[in-house]
């Protein structure tokens, strides 16, 4: 039996947009993308953190439009391909047409893990445009393995060629990953690939990605230096080193990806991406990782605790995209605090 080849997918320039408040310059983007390309990373995601059409008051206005980023980055790459994220309800097929015109290779259509049926329109459009089309099931810890497999089957039936189990909250334990990837592998067509997207809130990004590979995943997301929401994504250079020790083929040059992380990604960080008490709480309670900075900003503005905000967001069983509720929760906590005094 030959060792499986793992296709690595870098998130610095999409998930990494969250901790950068979507303020990455064209030069920084070009530098990181070219570094990843030279290191042999086959696929790089370039989009607003919340995907195409994410530019908004709710999620933040970026330094440049998705179209500007894509037109700048795509022509620079020698071997790497570029993907975009598209969350139905935020972005539209019209946005995807523009991205396709910029020369992208892959579209990842993302829905909450229970709502796969809103992706039909966008997955079909992706296939019609000849794109490598991925169904991306977010907050996958919220439902059990069989329910996730059923949602994956829906996306496959619309035409998705790869199905992702996405641990948006960085909440899953390795056994949770094993169960979900195995359930997907059992029901999906043999030619349908399976992917795993981790967050490092419980420091399990690498461990969970390995569990995913063992259960049959062939695409793994990570980001150089871990630049991503919450405590970041699976640190890509660490995963490459571990994969190399285990004899898993990734095609990525370890020294080069280490250098990208150290010399190109680390210097652009506005704050250290680490497991601080807020991101730890996110991982511990299963809250959407992207809420981190929004909760910290609202906490500072309204004089309340960011952990209280995040805990309340968890109690309200919020899902990705509900950033607008954070300010409301902060105002309510402030009113309660004032009432106590």
């Amino acid at each position: 039996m030959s060792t499986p080849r793992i296709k690595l997918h870098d998130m610095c320039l999409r998930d990494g947009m969250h901790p950068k408040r979507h303020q990455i310059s064209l030069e920084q983007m070009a530098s990181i993308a070219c570094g990843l390309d030279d290191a042999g990373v086959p696929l790089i995601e370039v989009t607003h953190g919340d995907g195409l059409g994410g530019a908004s008051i709710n999620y933040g206005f970026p330094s440049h439009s998705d179209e500007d980023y894509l037109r700048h980055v795509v022509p620079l790459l020698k071997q790497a391909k570029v993907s975009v994220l598209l969350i139905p309800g935020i972005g539209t097929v019209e946005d995807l047409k523009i991205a396709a015109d910029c020369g992208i290779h892959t579209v990842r259509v993302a829905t909450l893990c229970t709502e796969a049926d809103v992706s039909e329109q966008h997955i079909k459009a992706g296939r019609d445009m000849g794109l490598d089309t991925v169904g991306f099931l977010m907050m996958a810890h919220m439902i059990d393995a069989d329910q996730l497999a059923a949602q994956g089957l829906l996306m496959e039936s619309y035409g998705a060629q790869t199905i992702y189990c996405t641990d948006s909250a960085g909440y899953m334990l390795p056994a949770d990953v094993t169960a979900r990837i195995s359930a997907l592998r059992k029901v999906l067509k043999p030619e349908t690939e399976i992917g795993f997207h981790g967050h490092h809130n419980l420091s399990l990004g690498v461990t969970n990605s390995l569990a995913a590979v063992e259960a049959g995943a062939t695409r793994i997301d990570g980001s150089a230096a871990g630049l991503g929401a919450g405590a970041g994504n699976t640190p890509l250079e660490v995963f490459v080193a571990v994969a190399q020790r285990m004899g898993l083929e990734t095609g990525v040059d370890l020294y080069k990806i280490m250098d990208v992380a150290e010399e190109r990604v680390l210097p652009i960080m506005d704050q250290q991406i680490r497991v601080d008490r807020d991101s730890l709480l996110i991982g511990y309670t299963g809250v959407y990782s992207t809420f981190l900075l929004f909760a910290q900003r609202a906490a500072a503005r309204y004089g309340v605790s960011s952990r209280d905000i995040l805990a309340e967001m968890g109690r309200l069983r919020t899902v990705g995209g509900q950033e607008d509720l954070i300010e409301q929760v902060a105002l309510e906590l402030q009113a309660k605090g004032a009432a106590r005094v």
Partner: protein
Amino acid sequence: MKKINCALIGSGNIGTDLMVKALRSEWLNPVWMIGVDPESDGLARARAAGLKTTSEGLDAALPHFAADEIGIAFDATSAYVHAENARKVRAAGVFMIDLTPAAIGPFCVPPVNLEAHMARQEANVNMVSCGGQATIPIVYAVSRVQPVKYAEIIATVASKSAGPGTRKNIDEFTRTTARGIEQVGGATKGKAIIILNPAEPPLIMRDTVHCLTETTPDEAAIRDSILAMIAEVQRYVPGYALKQGPVFEGNRVSTFLEVAGLGDYLPKYAGNLDIMTAAALRTGEMFAQRAGDGGLKLSAGEAA
């Protein structure tokens, strides 16, 4: 006061909820419920309530419209079917209130532009979208005080309240609502975002409305305008409530709303669906009232 007879096209959740509301109306008298599925719960309820029903679509009922003096038709079918329904109903000289996303007629958000539509004697008005009905009044409440260069709304609805039609074409919601924010709300540029949340028990519809004003916002005037507008909407949607705000930060004006339904046929949490049926009913009642005053001609009587 003679009530205006009306026909409800579509016997699904929306059409049935609308019927329950119309049966209480002082101005409207629901006469026909038109469906395509003989087994539908909506048609059974309509029969029980004494309405005339058919499961063979609009064509089966249309020949009776003149004799039954139908003045208003509500279409709660789908955008695809509406185009054909609109043509036939117009030929019969009946005023059409469109709850589908077809948007053949101009957008109607009752507290903002219903008066204007009545003044122009429109033959077909469209109810935009659930998110549009919930948020456009607030955008307008800000833009009538001072120019709004950008308005953005985020509608969060319970997964259970998003039907298959919405799910198959969610882009239609974002596009149509954004257009309504511009055309009716008065923002130079509009954006709409919809989030589905599967929590149990289902959450009540939440809406956030962000406006960016061109100049420093006049906080007192905007607050008064928003509160007055909320009171207007509450006249037909009692569960329309301000949760927080308006919050001012620079030129940003943010308003946080919750919309609970009446729980007529649809569950209370589905305020997103209730606000559509309530707004459509309100539109019908206002037209009926105006027709009763002699200020508006509802039936052209061409089919008679």
